[in-house]
Structures are given as C-alpha cells and as structure tokens.
C-alpha cells in the first residue's frame, strides 16, 4: 500500500512541470516580418516651345480715313485687307517650334489672344489665332504651330512703326 501511494505522487510532478512551463513560454509569440513592394513612375519629356519667327503684319498703306483691317491666316499664311487699308506688303505669320514626348498631343494657347500694338499714334488691337491648338507631336517629338491675327487700323491712324508682344503656351 505504501509503495502505491509514492508512485502516484511522482507521476503527478512531471505534469505540473509541463503546465508551468507552458504557461510561461506560450506568450512568446511570432516573429517580425516584412515584405517589399516596388514603387514606380514613368516621366515623359517636358514640353518645350521656342519662337522661330515673329508675327509681322508688314507694311500697310491707304488713306486711313476709314477703319480697316489686315488679316493673316494662321493656317495658310495668306492675308487679306479691308476698309481704309489699300495695300499690305511683307506680312508673315508667326512660327513656333514645340518639342516633347513623341506621338503625344499638346495643348497650345495664348496667354492673352488680344494684344495691343503701340506706336506713334493710338494703339491698334490685334486678335490672334493659332493654326492648331492641339497638335500631336511627331515621332521625333516635334510639332510646329503658326500664329496669325486680325489687326484693326483706326480711322486717321498715325503712320509709323507699331509693335506689341504676346506669349504662346504649350502643355500636355
């Protein structure tokens, strides 16, 4: 009888040891982990624009007793006159070169499509036009746009040189 009682006591001890160890060690949890992803972006060429040729209404002559106009067609480069303007010589449309990503359309606009030409007399107003406001760059990333406009010459306009400036903007 005495031997049996001792045997039960010894068998119980390992079980208690197991429970105690498990309670202490189990909270030691998993490990830190990390995973990496790639970040990417493709940047295209910035649009560039340069002036190749100024817009010139040339030399106008006439009686200038009536209001007249001188028009340069941006697409064709042709010109026409009305009213008090009798002749127009040496007109030329403006010319701008655009560069950027090949085969991509760009948006072209004026900072202000109406400009004033100043000279010895009252200023004259010109309404500018573009040959193409949304050209597509060619396979080399180039495009050309032309600038024309309608110039209004006042009655009794004082003769002499008149000039003004304008800004062309190109963007994707």
């Amino acid at each position: 009888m005495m031997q049996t009682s001792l045997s039960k006591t010894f068998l119980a001890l390992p079980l208690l040891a197991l429970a105690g160890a498990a309670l202490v060690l189990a909270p030691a949890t998993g490990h830190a982990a990390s995973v990496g992803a790639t970040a990417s972006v493709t940047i295209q060429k910035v649009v560039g624009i340069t002036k190749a040729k100024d817009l010139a209404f040339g030399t106008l002559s006439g009686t200038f007793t009536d209001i007249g106009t001188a028009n340069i067609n941006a697409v064709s480069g042709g010109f026409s006159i009305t009213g008090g303007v009798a002749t127009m010589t040496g007109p030329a449309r403006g010319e701008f070169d655009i560069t950027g990503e090949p085969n991509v359309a760009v948006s072209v606009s004026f900072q202000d499509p109406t400009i004033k030409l100043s000279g010895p007399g009252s200023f004259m107003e010109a309404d500018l036009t573009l040959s193409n406001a949304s050209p597509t760059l060619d396979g080399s990333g180039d495009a050309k746009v032309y600038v024309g406009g309608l110039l209004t010459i006042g009655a009794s306009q004082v003769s002499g040189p008149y000039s003004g400036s304008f800004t062309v903007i190109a963007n994707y």
Partner: protein
Amino acid sequence: MDHPYRPLRGLAFLAFLVLVPGLANAQTVFASFPTSESTLSFGILAGDADLAGTAILSPSTQSVTVTGGTFSFGGTVSAPLFRVSRDGSGGNNPLSVTISWNSSIIVSNGAQTATVNPITCHVVASNANDAFNCTNGGTVGLRRDQFVDFRLGGTLSLAANQAAGAYTGTLTVTTNP
C-alpha cells in the same frame, strides 16, 4: 528499501522539458501579398517646364489625380495590396500586431529623384478582432487565422522640369511581432 521504478520516472520528467519549448513557436505573423498586386505605380506622368506639381495615387480608388504642373497619361496605375495575417497555431488571445512602412519613398531614374510623401492607406478587407486604423505604426488585433488586407498609395511630388525617365524605389511593410 529502494524502489525499483524510480530511475524510469526521472527519464519521463526530462522528456517533458524537451517538448515544452515546441509550444513557443506559435502565433506566427505573416506580411505578404495575397495577390500579384505588389507594385505602387503612378503610371505615366509629365511635368511642366516651369511649374512643380503632384500626382496623388488613391489607395481606395487606385487612380491618379494631378495638381499644378503635373500631367497624367494613364499607363499602369496600381496601389499594392498587402496582407498581414496570423497562422492557426498557438493560443487564441488577440495578438496586437504593429504594422509600419516607409515614412516616404524616394524614386530615382539614376540621375534625378522624386519623393512619395505622405503614403496613404486603405483597408480592403479584414476579419481582425481589433480593427486596423490604417496608419503607419498602427496596430491590429489578430486571433488565429485572422488577417487584414490593405492597399497603400501616396502623393508623388514632381519638380518643375523633372527629367524624363523610368523612376523606381522600394516600399517595405514591416510587422511586429
């Protein structure tokens, strides 16, 4: 009088000590991609010659919006999908897992760089015991076999006249434990 069985009881005790540490390798947390969507991509952009701008990749809509002098031309736009999960072993008490990632990403074409900052987060799916608030360094409470899926996006800043090219960088998501 010595008991004849005492040496055998001693051996059994040692065996228990060897087996117990095996229980500690539980509750493993994984950071992984549940799908192949593992790239944070802004697609194709272009910058203005004179004006800086940004491209904002939304992790919820997976689309890009632009501001300032930055223009988007589509391309492949993606916000990577991450999964943080806990395996099915160990106890089932909620385990608080801290999830963190880069505070910013620098992408480079080898010559110029651009920065993605901040990085934004959107939870896509989760069965977590305690929700993930989708912030860098935030925590999620996971029981066995629970997970949280989330996407990351961000704001890419481009300088005026940013050089053309393919820019890449690395985004790392880390969990602890």
